[in-house]
């Protein structure tokens, strides 16, 4: 069971690097949604006795992160007719190296944290830290609004991964609420992106820093 889970987390960490290294937005969205689907499957692998509520949240996560959010983002991308990140603030190679360095540091330093013995053999904590770092790098280093949204969603994936540690203690209501918030957030951002494009003729968020009347 644990080795399957570790394999999935390892794949999710690989997808982090795909997200950091790709200049094309469809690839970024695909990496993000594949990661979301993997995360949705994880509670099913972790749970010892079958529980319909866990299965329901897993199903909702897979549907939300695998289908709804990517299709919203793709639609936003189509309306503004942008499919590439051209001049990121942190280049693709440096951001990949940063992400990989972060993943290695997370793997090497996790054993310093006071973890429960049943979590000691899992990659959950390093995976969560590496994914959150990836989200931060995307948020900081990219200039297009859609890439930044993907960064935010990957950051959320990392937090969800961390939350899996507490799956027994945390009410499932919280998970469901977070998922709903994220979906609605992406829905709204899809509309805002269109507005930004119309007002500024570009999705470069650096143009949004100056206030004017």
């Amino acid at each position: 069971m644990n080795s399957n889970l570790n394999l999935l987390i390892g794949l999710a960490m690989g997808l982090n690097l795909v997200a950091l290294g790709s200049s094309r937005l469809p690839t970024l969205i695909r990496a993000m949604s594949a990661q979301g689907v993997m995360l949705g499957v994880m509670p099913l692998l972790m749970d010892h006795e079958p529980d319909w509520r866990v299965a329901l949240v897993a199903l909702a996560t897979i549907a939300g992160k695998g289908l709804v959010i990517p299709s919203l983002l793709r639609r936003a991308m189509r309306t503004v007719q942008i499919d590439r990140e051209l001049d990121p603030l942190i280049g693709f190679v440096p951001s990949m190296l940063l992400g990989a360095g972060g993943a290695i540091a997370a793997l090497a330093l996790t054993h310093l944290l006071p973890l429960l013995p049943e979590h000691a053999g899992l990659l959950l904590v390093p995976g969560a830290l590496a994914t959150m770092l990836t989200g931060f790098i995307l948020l900081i280093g990219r200039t297009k609004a859609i890439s930044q949204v993907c960064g935010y969603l990957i950051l959320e994936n990392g937090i969800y991964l961390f939350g899996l540690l507490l799956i027994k203690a945390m009410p499932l209501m919280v998970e469901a609420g977070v998922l709903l918030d994220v979906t609605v957030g992406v829905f709204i951002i899809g509309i805002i992106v269109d507005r930004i494009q119309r007002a500024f003729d570009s999705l470069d968020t650096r143009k949004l820093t100056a206030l004017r009347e």
Partner: protein
Amino acid sequence: MNSIIELIPRLGCWLLLAPLLPGIINKVKAWVAGRRGPPVLQLYYDLARLWRKGVVVSTLASPAFVILPAVAWVALLGAAMLVPLGPAGACLSFRGDALLMVYLLALGRFCTAWAALETGSAFEGMGAVREVSYAVLAEAAMVAAVLSLSVQTGSISLATMLAPSVGASAALLAAGLFIVLLAENCRVPFDDPNTHLELTMIHEVMVLDHSGPPLAAILHGAALKLLLFSVVLTQAVLPLTQLSPPAATGLLAGSVLLVTVGVGLVESLLARFALRRVPLLLTTAFLLCLFALLVAWKGGMP
């Protein structure tokens, strides 16, 4: 005396089989494109023809221009002699030969680049610069792969190092080493061996002014390097040592053939990458090998 008798068939195997690989790649490419293509043995004919020809040397070039291709060929052959051929074993084997292999490959490249600079042509200098700048990144990946193999088996001798790795580590290594193979042998996403378009050539531009036997040495050396990398890739991933010798030999030959066909398919289906996208791919290869190292180091799990 005995060791010399054992040495000759292995050496012959390397020398005679190497030119087959580019022929197979060209055949696969022709087959995908729906052409008949050159015969598989074309490189043998080319080598024989070049061997009989004379050498044209620029007035600018020093004698090194003729000597360096030979040195590069000997270095590549030396590297090949260290790599075990499945159950047949290596020609030479000692503790730390993995490091020597990496350095001999670097020496081969250094000599080719130097010989290119000898011609005094800015054009060939550009090719040498590109070759060396790709090599910096490809070598990092190669070193990470060698390190991960050595951590996995706790040895620095190629004969014991090329033991099968397991699971995730093997997959990562296979992907990383395949990209390194493509980069080191100047195959398609990095360089197009068929192109004669001046601004995009890398390896071809370095050997443009060579002729006759030195060019034959360069071509044979390139084929040898391709065979070397595919043998290393195969043995790093497949559990050859656990099979009976005939089965292992068959598997080795089959998978080297598979790697060659894979290179041909990549070459047919993929366009050459723009120069600025190459570092990204090589960094990916480096990271793949680095993560294989990490998996090996953690022993599958922390």
